[in-house]
């Protein structure tokens, strides 16, 4: 996969965050340049120290909650950044609306990013949204 991969995360449900984190970590570990844009209901999970459990959307999410050994999505995103240099970018609009300073986010998150810049970068690759 030589193409760059761009992921937009807006959902706050367990299944979508998990799938996005799986895609980001595996692609980044395989050498793909990955950028993830967190907005809407997905962003607040990355406030420093936040341990909120993402609610299940359906049966599979409930199954993941109950089953041991499913890697947590926060950990997978962190690994994507640490092992594969993925960029984890908070949406500047969402930060404003939630009244969160970017310094309040986990250190693996990058600078606040506008949608225009993210989409401009994404012209060079494949874009997925969750």
């Amino acid at each position, binding site marked *: 996969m030589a193409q760059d991969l761009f992921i937009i995360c807006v959902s706050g449900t367990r299944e979508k965050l998990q799938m996005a984190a799986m895609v980001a*970590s*595996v692609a980044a*570990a*395989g050498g793909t340049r990955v950028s993830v844009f967190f907005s809407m209901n997905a962003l607040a999970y990355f406030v420093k120290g936040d341990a909120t459990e993402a609610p299940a959307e359906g049966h599979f999410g409930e199954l993941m909650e109950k089953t*041991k*050994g*499913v*890697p947590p999505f926060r950990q997978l995103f962190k*690994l994507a950044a640490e092992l594969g240099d993925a960029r984890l970018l908070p949406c500047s609009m969402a930060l404003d609306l939630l009244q969160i300073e970017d310094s309040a986010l986990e250190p693996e998150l990058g600078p606040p990013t506008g949608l225009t810049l993210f989409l401009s970068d994404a012209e060079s690759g494949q874009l997925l949204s969750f």
Partner: protein
Amino acid sequence: MSETKVIDARDTFCPGPLMELITYMKQANVGDTLELLSTDKGTASDVPEWINKVGHEMISSEKVDEVWHIKVRKAK
């Protein structure tokens, strides 16, 4: 003589075992052998794919009592 490191990732689900392997691979020296233990079915195909993609070396892959034993060598 290079060392063999056993990584026990049994009872974790995709992509946990692969991520464990990659974490240890980063810390290993060139020439080191790593043996990954996994009960995740996808590991048997995912690890060789990753090894091939990033240019390390597959040594062996076998299933013993429902556990995959995948040996790889750090090549670079």
